């Protein structure tokens, strides 16, 4: 066990830790999380998130499907899937309208990967879930409401 590493891990928040690592020269500032779309994940409202993703105002499409339970007993683990029959899908994102930050996850799909992704998300309360799909450079969206009887954010 590397005790120094343990101490570093215990000593506070992620931001402070990153700062320390940066100061120690282990990672250079700007390298960490460089690829992660911070603006999109920090955005609170749906509109801001869509803007940060460069999606503007996507059109509703019947060719995008959101799957999930109608009622989720436990908001901490809500199975959600996005599928689309649209061609050339390059990006899929899952947004939860009433969570503190709307964007839950985004996926970049290279050619050959099907527009069919399943994961599990947390939901703070009953909310609409949006599936955002980028096909041929255009954004499309579908919605499903999931009722949550027990929230997954906060105690």
């Amino acid at each position: 066990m590397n005790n120094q590493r343990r101490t570093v891990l215990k000593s506070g928040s992620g931001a402070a830790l990153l700062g320390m690592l940066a100061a120690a020269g282990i990672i250079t500032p700007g390298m960490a999380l460089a690829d992660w779309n911070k603006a999109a994940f920090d955005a609170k409202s749906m509109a801001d998130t869509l803007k940060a993703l460069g999606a503007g105002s996507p059109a509703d499409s019947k060719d995008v499907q959101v799957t999930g339970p109608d009622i989720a007993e436990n908001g901490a683990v809500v199975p959600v899937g996005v599928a689309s029959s649209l061609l050339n899908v390059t990006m899929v994102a899952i947004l939860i309208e009433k969570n503190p930050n709307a964007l839950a996850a985004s996926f970049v799909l290279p050619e050959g990967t099907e527009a069919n992704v399943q994961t599990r998300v947390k939901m703070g309360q009953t909310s609409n879930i949006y599936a955002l799909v980028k096909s041929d450079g255009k954004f499309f969206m579908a919605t499903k409401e999931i009722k949550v009887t027990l929230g997954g954010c906060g105690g």
Partner: protein
Amino acid sequence: MGNPMKIRAANKDGVTEVKVLVSHEMETGQRKDSAGAIVPAWFITELTAKHGDKVVLSSEFGPSVSKNPYLAFKFKGGAKGDKITVSWKDNKGDTRSDEAAIN
């Protein structure tokens, strides 16, 4: 480094379905502990899956992905015995990479 991921990959009719179960706390940074102090955010930010050297899925996660994230996706191609590599990075800079062979 985190605990090992569970990765299952199965090829059927030329399409490989990959299922990944990652072991990670995925702390949101919204929760408070019993003393009322906010538990700092700790979550996976990026996860990449590769078939051999080719990236088949690259994803970005926010803190609202569930604890011990589950992910399933499908890609065309892949043959029995091919190697699938999944790697993630979290907001503390920790990383982990695991491999599995397609069944």
